[in-house]
């Protein structure tokens, strides 16, 4: 009896001693975990801070409010009043006439030219569009909110160093004085930049928007999902549930894993060779982009779907088969519903990766400068990541903040997709 008690005591002591070590290890591990988390969060915050700080001003733009007399003699110089006249009319001079009323101090031609350059070249299109929509405006005086040139915008956002020599900047001292003058007259306002969300690309930063790229990316992702999800899921189901495990399926598995790791640019080359050169699909169209991204996403979704199928307990298959369900009934009634959340999450993660890819899209010509918003999948289109690439490469300072704005749009897009993934997972999750 005595012996047993002493032995018990010893064991307790031994455990106590090892307990200390174990607790120590646990503390260390927690510290490692927390510090790596902190590092990750710091990186993330720095990343967001830098993007938001350069990009937030992109959501504001500066406009000038002008009363423009739509002189019918200027608009219809030949007196013919045709539609064609409206396309070739000299709206610039109308704007300038109005501007001159506010700036009587303009003396020579040079000064007048500089004054004209305060406004964006897009200002006259704005008037033109309005008149084409409503011809009765001709002959009246209408108040317009017109975009300013990006250099003025930059100046007003505080990016221009007025102390530096005039030659080193694009806005002259004279223009700055004019702008200050107009501000005093309360003609220049800062507004929310709707242009950013409703227009496509442009050579002029103040006229450029991300809608074209957003629509293009959305079309491509839709195509990617429609093509790669059903194909990859059926392939995964076949490989996991039906195919006999042999040398061929092993070979296939190795190849699929390899494909998932192939650099994306190679898919771009493949797409160029097959879809564009061989099948003659149009260049830089969302259909081609979507097909290329499908190829790229395909192996990723197969791998995710197979993992999801593998995680379905075999006892469920046995239960169904044991009742006399056929192989396909077992798979469709029991296995796939249980694997579906994993499949969906996997494919959305794959698509999120596809959304951010620019290299393969560049290979199929999606770097083209496309102003129009695509209305069908065969029209030339931009894509968000490529838009980021293009704008970050542009010399105008106005594009720097646009780049960040495009990145933010990309991040929001990703965030939405990942939230969708979580929502779908919870919706289809079967409670045990």
């Amino acid at each position, binding site marked *: 009896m005595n012996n047993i008690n002493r032995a018990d005591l010893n064991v307790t002591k031994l455990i106590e001693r090892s307990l200390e070590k174990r607790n120590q290890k646990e503390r260390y591990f927690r510290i490692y975990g927390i510090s790596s988390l902190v590092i990750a969060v710091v990186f993330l915050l720095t990343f967001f801070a830098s993007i938001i700080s350069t990009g937030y001003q992109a959501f504001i733009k500066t406009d000038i409010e002008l009363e423009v007399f739509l002189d019918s003699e200027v608009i219809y110089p030949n007196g013919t009043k045709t539609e064609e006249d409206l396309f070739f009319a000299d709206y610039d001079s109308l704007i300038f006439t109005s501007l001159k009323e506010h700036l009587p101090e303009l003396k020579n031609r040079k000064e007048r030219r500089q004054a004209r350059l305060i406004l964006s070249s897009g200002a006259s299109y704005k008037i033109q569009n309005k008149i084409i929509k409503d011809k009765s405006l001709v002959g009246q005086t209408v108040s317009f909110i017109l975009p300013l040139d990006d250099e003025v915008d930059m100046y007003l956002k505080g990016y221009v160093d007025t102390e530096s020599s005039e030659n080193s900047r694009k806005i002259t001292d004279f223009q700055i004085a004019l702008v200050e003058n107009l501000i005093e007259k309360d003609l220049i306002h800062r507004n929310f930049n709707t242009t950013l969300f409703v227009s496509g690309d442009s050579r002029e930063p103040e006229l450029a928007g991300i809608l074209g790229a957003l629509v293009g990316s959305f079309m491509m992702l839709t195509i990617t999902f429609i093509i790669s999800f059903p194909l990859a899921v059926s392939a995964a189901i076949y490989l996991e549930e039906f195919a006999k495990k042999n040398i061929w399926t092993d070979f296939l598995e190795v190849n699929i894993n390899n494909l998932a790791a192939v650099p994306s640019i190679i898919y771009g080359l493949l797409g160029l060779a097959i879809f564009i050169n061989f099948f003659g699909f149009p260049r830089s169209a969302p259909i081609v982009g979507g097909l290329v991204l499908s190829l790229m996403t395909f192996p990723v979704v197969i791998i995710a779907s197979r993992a999801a199928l593998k995680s379905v307990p075999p*006892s*469920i298959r*046995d239960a169904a088969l044991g*009742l006399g*369900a056929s192989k396909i009934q077992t798979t469709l009634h029991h296995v796939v519903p249980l694997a579906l959340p994993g499949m969906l999450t996997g494919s959305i993660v794959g698509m999120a990766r596809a959304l951010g890819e620019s290299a393969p899209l560049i290979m199929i010509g999606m770097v083209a400068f496309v102003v129009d918003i695509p209305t069908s999948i065969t029209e030339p289109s931009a894509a968000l990541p490529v838009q980021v690439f293009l704008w970050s490469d542009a010399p105008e300072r106005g594009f720097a903040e646009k780049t960040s704005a495009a990145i933010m749009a990309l991040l929001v897009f990703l965030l939405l997709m990942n939230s969708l993934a979580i929502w779908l997972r919870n919706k289809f999750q079967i409670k*045990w």
Partner: protein
Amino acid sequence: MEEELDSNFKTVGNIRTEKSVIMNVEDCNVYYGDVHALKNVNMEIGKSEVLALIGPSGCGKSTFIRCLNRLNDTIDIARVTGKISLDGKDIYSDYINTSGNMDVVLLRARVGMVFQKPNPFPKSIFENVAYGPKIHGLCKDKNDLNNLVESCLVKVGLWDEVKDRLEDSGTSLSGGQQQRLCIARAIAVQPEVILMDEPCSALDPIATERIEDLISELKQNYALVVVTHSMQQASRISQRAAYFHMGNLVEVDSSNKIFNDPSHPLTTNYISGRIG
């Protein structure tokens, strides 16, 4: 006692049943890759009787009953040879070319199975029981199906416990309830043979007793093959018993004989508790 038996060892006792034969196993061998898991098994399974399979862990009991409904087909490396017939029709006829074949789906509908670990579908209790009849088209309408589900749940003594929560998930039940649900699910297809692989191993004595009662009741209409590790249970519920040892069917006879006066020394040792 761990040494293997001679390769031309012959089962002792009586491999024939006194009842009318429903399944007949001839020269059945199972290989898992290179592992010879079941060796030359010959045995009859009779209608309206409970056949208990006993033997130490790893001796091939599960392997044997999984041959009877071809569930070994799902294991890629498993290979089954020999002839097993249900009502005189070869169930492995895709393997061996003989006249009179049977589709594996039909086979499994006629030979139901209950597993060692309760494995209800993660669907509603109702759906669990209704699934089999639905896929086989056994009920002509919704009403018919409702009645069938109810009668099956009544048979396994689960009806009173679940009648108000038929829409709850089958997995929300307790272990014993889940096992009874699985039995209800199996009998809903109205099989002729029910295979049970250690149906009580996860259950408490009360649930075990209920299942034993259920087995005795089911015996009236079905042929049952029950794997069990409990000698007492085997002697309580079975009319015949078969003792397996390292892949060999050592002895099969009436339960009375096996548990009171076994012929083979291996069986004697096992029964008296010296192995297993």
